[in-house]
């Protein structure tokens, strides 16, 4: 079975090839007569599906290996080697990346299938699938990369794809701006990533710059350097996974087509940051200070975006903020060294968030791109399948037992408590309540009560099968995925955690089941409270309220975007125009200009000396002569 490792290279390659093929086809035909959408769709799905099966093969091969040697590396070629720095284009499959591999390819394939339905009739059908394939390929490189540099390739690749996909409907400026915002903010994070890598390299990179060797050399790091590396890398994670202060791009990213929002900006890409922190668990576990900071940033992000979520009116925005908030949870998890829990939450979240987005997508699709929840209502009769699936998704998101979200989230909170971060635990519980609230606010507003926009309601209809089937599959996942990591409390044996054991550096604190039960109850209670409040307010349908005071602040996201704009963007542009309008012509260049001016002036004055009177010339001679003789009398004796 040794040759299995050689398949690994194919897994990211297939979608990339697909992307290139589709891209070329589209590029040459989009101005003339395009190929049929069927062809595009088929081509687009080949790559992802194949790599999903390959992933399965590799995964099971991995499972068959003994626990302590569960890692397959495939060194495709030496990327570049300069001095001590040697970077191989090599792929590593170990339990962590294996798991990630599975659900990235799985969800990826689902989204491709779904998109065939959703994007039908768009004149840039081909382009869309080109990007989608490209994205999947980059994501897989990110996951499989055997070292930080290769990971960075995928890292930037997905950034690019999200830019392209967000600004997919590029004719209207809003989307393009959103895309730019996403790319630039991601770049800010990438700066951190690059610097972190560099520091890491100079510290311990000379002994090999891939995870395994780095893990082996971690002990050589001094605390200062180590923490610096962790934090710099975390900046990168903040950019990619939309944490404070770089979360601003994610909500705008909803400008893209809904499948994109679902796939990229909920399920896979945004969790890259979490994955990265988990990848470097050997460092974050080693330098707990950094971990704690990560945890706090995460939980605060969760809180902040939960607050935003409670007041939004755009269905996709609500989901977007819930994503940010869930990401916060994940970081809190990996921050408190509950890596497996964090990853598990990524896993479950992928299901229910993708589900919710796609559900939202089919709702929007049904209402002809109406996204304002205050224009919906009572749709549960019109589109029952969507309703049911989304309800499951909502319960999972809210963390209502026994749905998947409950287990993963609760695991995180419990670990936080267990590792002594009581503050984080408290906030976490609070956020859980808020999450439940805004999730069900959404459900009630959309599906219950009475239609607010009658004619939109009348035209509404259930989505086609190609769209609902993925919904149902995902719903199943969202409902049941929790079982995979059933805590010992319920007689489970934490399959995922144990599976991830070899590639993560974490220790399971032992606390009495009593405490665990109490904690669990607390969060359940919080969830229930949240849901009831939501029902009280919106259960029987409510009209759009006038936001005032805190709600107004929340609705406007505390004006953070405006503040950023005023503090960073505008000054930046200002400086730019100052330089090019004023500094460049008048200051930087002025020295030269001044010199030439002096030169010319002196020239004209000398011109004036040529008076043309021969006597005066003789006079010059005599003056020169006398000055020279003075000079001589000075210099000689």
């Amino acid at each position, binding site marked *: 079975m040794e040759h299995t490792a050689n398949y690994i290279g194919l897994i990211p390659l297939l979608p990339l090839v697909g992307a290139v093929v589709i891209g070329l086809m589209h590029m040459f035909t989009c101005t003339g007569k395009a190929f049929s959408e069927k062809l595009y769709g088929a081509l687009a799905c080949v790559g992802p599906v194949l790599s999903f099966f390959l992933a399965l093969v590799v995964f099971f091969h991995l499972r068959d290996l003994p626990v302590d040697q569960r890692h397959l590396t495939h060194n495709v070629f030496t990327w570049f080697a300069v001095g001590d720095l040697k970077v191989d284009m090599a792929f590593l499959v170990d339990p962590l990346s294996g798991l990630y591999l599975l659900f990235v390819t799985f969800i990826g394939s689902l989204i491709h299938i779904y998109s065939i339905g959703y994007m039908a009739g768009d004149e840039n059908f081909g382009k869309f699938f080109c990007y989608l394939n490209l994205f999947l390929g980059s994501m897989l490189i990110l996951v499989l990369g055997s070292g930080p540099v290769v990971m960075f390739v995928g890292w930037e690749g997905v950034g690019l794809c999200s830019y392209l996909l967000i600004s997919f409907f590029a004719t209207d400026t809003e989307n393009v701006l959103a895309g730019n915002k996403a790319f630039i903010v991601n770049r800010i994070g990438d700066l951190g990533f690059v610097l972190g890598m560099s520091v890491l390299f100079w510290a311990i990179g000379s002994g090999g710059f891939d995870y395994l060797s780095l893990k082996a050399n971690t002990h050589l790091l001094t605390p200062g350097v180590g923490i610096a590396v962790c934090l710099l890398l975390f900046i990168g994670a903040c950019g990619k996974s939309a944490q404070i202060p770089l979360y601003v791009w994610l909500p705008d990213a909803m400008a893209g087509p809904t499948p994109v929002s679902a796939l990229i900006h909920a399920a896979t890409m945004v969790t890259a940051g979490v994955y990265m922190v988990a990848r470097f668990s050997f460092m974050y576990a080693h330098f707990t200070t950094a971990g704690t900071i990560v945890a706090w940033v995460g939980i605060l992000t969760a809180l902040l975006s939960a607050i935003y979520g409670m007041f939004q009116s755009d269905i996709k925005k609500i989901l977007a903020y819930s994503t940010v908030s869930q990401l916060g949870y994940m970081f809190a998890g990996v921050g408190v060294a509950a890596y497996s829990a964090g990853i598990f939450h990524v896993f479950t979240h992928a299901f229910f968030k993708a589900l919710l987005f796609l559900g939202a997508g089919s709702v929007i699709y049904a209402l002809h791109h109406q996204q304002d929840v205050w224009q919906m209502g009572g749709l549960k009769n019109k589109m029952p399948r969507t309703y049911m699936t989304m309800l499951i998704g909502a319960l999972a998101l809210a963390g209502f037992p026994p749905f998947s979200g409950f287990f993963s989230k609760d695991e995180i909170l419990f670990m936080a408590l267990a590792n002594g971060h009581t503050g984080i635990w408290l906030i976490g519980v609070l956020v859980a309540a808020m999450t439940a609230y805004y999730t069900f606010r959404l459900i009630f507003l959309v599906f219950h009560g009475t239609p607010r926009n009658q004619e939109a309601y009348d035209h509404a209809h259930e989505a086609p099968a190609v769209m609902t089937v993925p919904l149902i599959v995902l719903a199943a996942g969202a409902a049941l995925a929790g079982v995979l990591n059933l805590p010992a409390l319920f007689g489970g044996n934490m399959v995922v955690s144990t599976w991830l054991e070899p590639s993560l550096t974490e220790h399971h604190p032992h606390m009495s089941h009593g405490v665990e039960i109490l904690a669990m109850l607390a969060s359940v209670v919080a969830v229930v409270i949240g849901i009831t409040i939501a029902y009280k307010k919106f259960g029987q349908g409510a009209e759009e309220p006038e936001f005032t005071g805190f709600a107004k602040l929340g609705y406007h996201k505390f004006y953070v975007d405006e503040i950023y704009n005023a503090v960073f963007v505008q000054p930046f542009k200002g400086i730019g125009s100052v330089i090019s309008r004023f500094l460049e012509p008048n200051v930087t260049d002025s020295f030269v200009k001044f010199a030439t001016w002096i*030169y010319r002036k002196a020239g004209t004055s000398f011109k004036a000396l040529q008076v043309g009177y021969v006597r005066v*010339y003789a006079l*010059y*001679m005599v003056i*020169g*002569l006398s000055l*020279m003789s003075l*000079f001589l009398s000075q210099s*000689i004796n």
Partner: protein
Amino acid sequence: MQDFVSLLPLIVVGAGAILLMLLAAFEKLEVETGALISMVFYGAAFFIQLVVGGGPQDVIFDKIFNGMLATSNFSMAAGLVIFGCGFFTSMSCHSYFGVNKFCTLDFYAIKMFSVCGMVLLTMAQELVTAFIALEIMSLGIYILVGYDRTRLTATEAILKYLMLGAFAGAFFTMGAALIYGGAGSTKFVAISQFIAANPAGQPLLIGGAFFIFIAIFFKIAAFPFHAWVVDVYDGASAPVTGFMATALKAAVFALFANFIALSSGFHGQWIDFLFWVAVLTMFGGNLVAIGQSNIKRMLAASGIVHSGYLLIALVAINAEQFTGSVIGYYLAAYAVGTLGMFAAMSYLGGSGEKRVNFDDFKGLAKVRPYSAAAITVFLLSMAGIPPTAGFMGKFYIITSAISAGQMALAVLGVVSSILSMWYYLRLVISMYFHDASESFETQGAPLATISTFVLVVFVFAIGLYPIVI
């Protein structure tokens, strides 16, 4: 016998001059033929010089007229340059006077006489001989400058030149007298022996040398004795200006070098003084040049700057084993460029020199691309852009200056050549980057044109294969 051999070129040219004067008696003889005849003689002299000077040793004949003249490789080289200048000037005169008819055969005769004076000057090893040679040269040049008796400007030019020249000459004589008083002789050899005997700066000597320097500074238009040069160049006719700018400068610098290289002690005394003169000359020249709108005046001013560079070389010479190779090479390089410029001016200038300003040459490249290209080459050579002769000259000078430890002087020289880019480029720009307003038609014989392109070849030839003397 050796006296005769070493003087042979001189004699040839002198004979040619006399012959021309006699021929001048025949009315039917064309002026053009005069030019050709003189060219023949210059050529002959040039080759004789080449043959005689071909020897490897440094000083060939050091005891001519018991030490009044001496020919070294350096003086030979200077002589070659002078003959060359005479030759090419005759070529450009040939065309020039085809258009501006005020020439007679005597013109060429006088020119050859002054060449004699120049060559004598390069060999002079005795002050009064030098003075006489200087005067032979100058008297000839005076006449050439004012040859167009009908033009007031020419007359004014000769007035200024003559008056100030005589003024400077008086200084020379006074200096000679003082040195004679100090050293008891006016022969360079004796003077150097005297200095070697009593190195303490002897006031009479210093004063005398100073006066002689004044005179020389005047001739090479060092700052602040430069004022005349702009006006005189402007007033004189183009070929003559070219002749003055090159041959005269070569001769005088030959004398200057021979004199300053008397003995290292003497040279050492004057280094600081020359340093400042060089600096002032370079920058003063640039400042004069930048303001000019007339090309001849600009070239005159740039001539001042080049004198400054040559002064750098003089500061840097090593008086112990003086070869003068750097100076010789620079003189040749400068001569080629300048002669080319004036040759071009003399056939492009038209009758009565109606094209002399920068603006008159606008769009030349559109109408006469080759002439424009040639002029550009000369300008680049003067500016010292490789691979022209001017570059190698500048390179040698900087090298010698730095080897002599005169880093500051080298840098200042470089700075001044940066400044000089300005007015050289200005002409290129007006030739190339503007549209032609006229058709630059030229009549008259094509010799000047030919000489221009021959000189272009020389510019590159000397630049790429620098014959280090």
